[in-house]
């Protein structure tokens, strides 16, 4: 399997039949639309390094109430388009004067996208099993294009994370992840998720995270922060070169001026 970093406008194939997600066809040839990684499995696809979540019907998302009208809750779903939850899509009957007391500004809610029309009006629903208001726990935000890595092959990563940290966890397709458990366990899970984001383009990620969580587990139970930090530092060292290159500061450039 061939994988490489590609940029917008880069020629990917002479055969238009190869065109997959993240590509376009011009004069019978396939070009990249995005800055990301090329993946040539059946068709050629490009998975971008970054990008906003664009709502699609049946997606699961975590939203935050940003406005309440007499018959709708309006949700920020981490996308250019806000979502609308009509009162009839709430699991039980709510009178219009009870809207705010049912779900107030700033509430985090597990939702499913019911429909998206052509002008990107996003309708949400809570009338499905498991959808609910999230009153405890934390919400972590990650790059939406990296959600598949949090879930892992066949859900392996999520299973691992839940098992090793004893946390409840729900991954929204809009890049918001809800976790709930003991504080120390949530801290650990948060670190693990950050680690996945950092190493999201590497192979053997599940093993790596498993290793991290197991080591961490001991560390946490010993409450030895020094060891914990050392462990993290080593992990960072792994990526030392990339980090150097990637995150070199703007001002470092300035310094070299003249």
């Amino acid at each position: 399997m061939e994988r490489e970093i590609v940029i917008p406008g880069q020629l990917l194939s002479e055969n238009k039949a190869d065109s997959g997600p993240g590509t376009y066809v011009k004069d019978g040839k396939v070009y990249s639309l995005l800055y990301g990684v090329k993946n040539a499995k059946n068709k050629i696809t490009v998975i971008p390094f970054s990008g906003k979540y664009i709502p699609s019907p049946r997606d699961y998302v975590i939203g935050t109430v940003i406005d309440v009208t007499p018959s709708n809750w309006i949700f920020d779903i981490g996308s250019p388009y806000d979502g609308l939850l009509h009162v009839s899509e709430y699991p039980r009957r709510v009178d219009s004067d009870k809207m705010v007391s049912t779900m107030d500004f700033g509430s985090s809610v597990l939702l499913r996208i019911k429909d998206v029309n052509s002008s990107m009006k996003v309708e949400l629903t809570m009338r499905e099993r498991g959808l609910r208001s999230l009153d405890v726990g934390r919400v972590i935000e990650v790059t939406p294009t990296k959600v598949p890595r949090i879930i892992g092959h066949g859900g392996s990563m999520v299973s691992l994370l839940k098992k090793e940290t004893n946390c409840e966890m729900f991954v929204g397709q809009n890049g918001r992840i809800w976790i709930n458990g003991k504080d120390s366990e949530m801290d650990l899970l948060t670190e693990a998720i950050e680690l996945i984001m950092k190493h999201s383009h590497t192979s053997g990620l599940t093993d790596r995270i498993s290793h991290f969580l197991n080591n961490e587990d001991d560390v946490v139970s010993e409450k030895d922060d020094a060891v914990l930090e050392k462990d993290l530092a080593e992990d960072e060292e792994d990526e030392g070169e990339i980090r150097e290159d990637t995150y070199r500061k703007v001002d470092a450039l300035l310094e070299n001026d003249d």
Partner: protein
Amino acid sequence: MGNEVMSVLKKDYIYNLMLKGKRQDGRSFDEIRNIDLRTNVIEKAEGSAWIKLGETEILVGVKLQVGSPFPDSAGEGVIITSMELNPIASPDFEAGPPKEKAIEMARVADRGIRESGAIDLSKLCITEGEEVWIVFIDIHVLNNTGNIQDAASLGAIAALLTATVPGEREGRGEDMPMPIRDMPVAVTLADLGGEMMVDPDLGEETVCDSRITIVSNQDGSISGMQKSGDGALTEEQLLKAVSLACEKASELRENYLLNI
């Protein structure tokens, strides 16, 4: 844009951390984020400083022009401080003329420099009553992750410390270093559930009840202060904030300004 609602879970998280004596990024209540300060980064300016306070980034440029003095201070130069909260710096900032937040912060930075007498304005007089140097301090905010105020103030004094009065270029005698007499440093604390936290980040700024900025000088005197936000402070909190701010300002001066 501009009216982001912070989720209750996030607010609770920050608040609960505070109850346990912790902060999101692992700092202690009296700990300032890492600072990276580089001076003379813009050759076209008479003085400049690029400051990173955590991920908050600000570029301050100092320009000098010959102009008229104010009638009531005919023998003194003039300081004009402006701040732009550029939309490049945050999804919450919008293009357009400075709004009250930007104007407030620019004025707090300005007062710190002016009232401390950091610049010897009498030395910026060319011909009394006719020509003086006008010092423009322009604060360009590039990335906001909280506490623009302290970054702007530290950047401004750092830029001034590196500035040259361009006498030759303007045909007004020889170049001379900016006549600096003091180094005012602003330190801001946020009141979060009664606890005072130095150098608040974006989340803390959002959750806190109010903020207090204290500008102090080399001799420990205070030359500027501003309470901002819709909460109120107790006298005890205020006095504690003053002593902590002066202590922190002295550290910042030692670490970042005295070696310029």
